[in-house]
């Protein structure tokens, strides 16, 4: 599996355990525990898919999403959320997001969404040539 996944979540134990689980499933998973580290990591080693928690201290998740899309629109972002209503996404997925997944995460559902996001990124890259 060649998919590079970046998990961005301020809950260190959650992000690191999830990264380990993805590594065991042959994804290349990295973690960032705040928005600023995530942005600098994305700019130095662009991932294919970002798993993004919107509710982090400091920069808001939507600002991170905007920065990612400005840097490289083909990077796909999946939102990690506990409560879709709180994030204002219960009535639809905001522009720029690939999808969202509820916490606690079902690993099979998550890997399926990551795979679909990765396919979409590759398709978009091919189209752009």
């Amino acid at each position, binding site marked *: 599996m060649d998919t590079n996944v970046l998990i961005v979540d301020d809950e260190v134990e*959650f992000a690191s*355990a999830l990264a380990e689980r993805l590594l065991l499933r042959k994804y290349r998973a990295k973690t960032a525990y705040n928005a600023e580290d995530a942005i600098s990591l994305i700019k130095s080693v662009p991932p294919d898919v970002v798993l993004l928690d919107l509710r982090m*201290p400091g920069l808001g998740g939507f600002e991170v999403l905007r920065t990612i899309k400005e840097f490289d629109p083909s990077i796909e972002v999946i939102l990690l959320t*506990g409560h879709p209503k709180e994030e204002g996404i219960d009535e639809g997925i905001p522009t720029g997001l690939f999808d969202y997944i509820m*916490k606690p995460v079902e690993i099979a559902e998550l890997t399926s969404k990551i795979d679909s996001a990765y396919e979409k990124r590759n398709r978009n890259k091919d189209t752009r040539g």
Partner: protein
Amino acid sequence: MIDIDLRTSELNFIGKVLCVFTHQVNNQLAILKESVGLIGDLIEMGKVSRKDLEGIMSLIESIRNQISKTAYFCNSLNSFGHGMVETSASFAVNKIIDDLVCLLDKLAAQKRITFKKEFKEGIPLIHGNPLKLQFLVFYFIEKNLTRLEKNSSIIIKTSRSEDTINIDVIPKGIFVQVEDGAGGDTAYQFLANNLGASISVDTPEGGITIRLPLPSSAA
């Protein structure tokens, strides 16, 4: 009119506490699920070497910590709930403020603001409505959460003087310019009066002290 405004604000306060609580418990459950999931993965994939056993032990430790954190958090909400049921009770000021701060901690952390608790031991129990007092303290905490820039702090201090129990809410850090809602403090002054308390602004940054009368048995 003030009474209706306060009632609406009180429900708003309870709603916020419930949102923060459920959000936080959900996060803790997510950590537990991933930790247990990882242990399961390692066993299922037959990857339990001596090194992995160390990893598993540390995951089990993390699970224990999360369970303790969640239990503490649930206990705080439980006490908070009791305050809504028993509207006239004897209670410890330190305990109800500690519950409130615990429930609001994540809200502050999202703004990179920390709470610093300085609780004086040996404060006598007081009689009254604990929820109303939490609501009053919440008003000043929330006001400061709005006024402070990130990396600031809010000191919440309790003490006892000769005839009063004092609760201080003191903001420390850099302030942002925000419009004060018209009449907000008047409504809370009304609430303080109902509690038999007085409020004074004690620092140039807007630190306040809530003074509650010491029960006659302890005076």
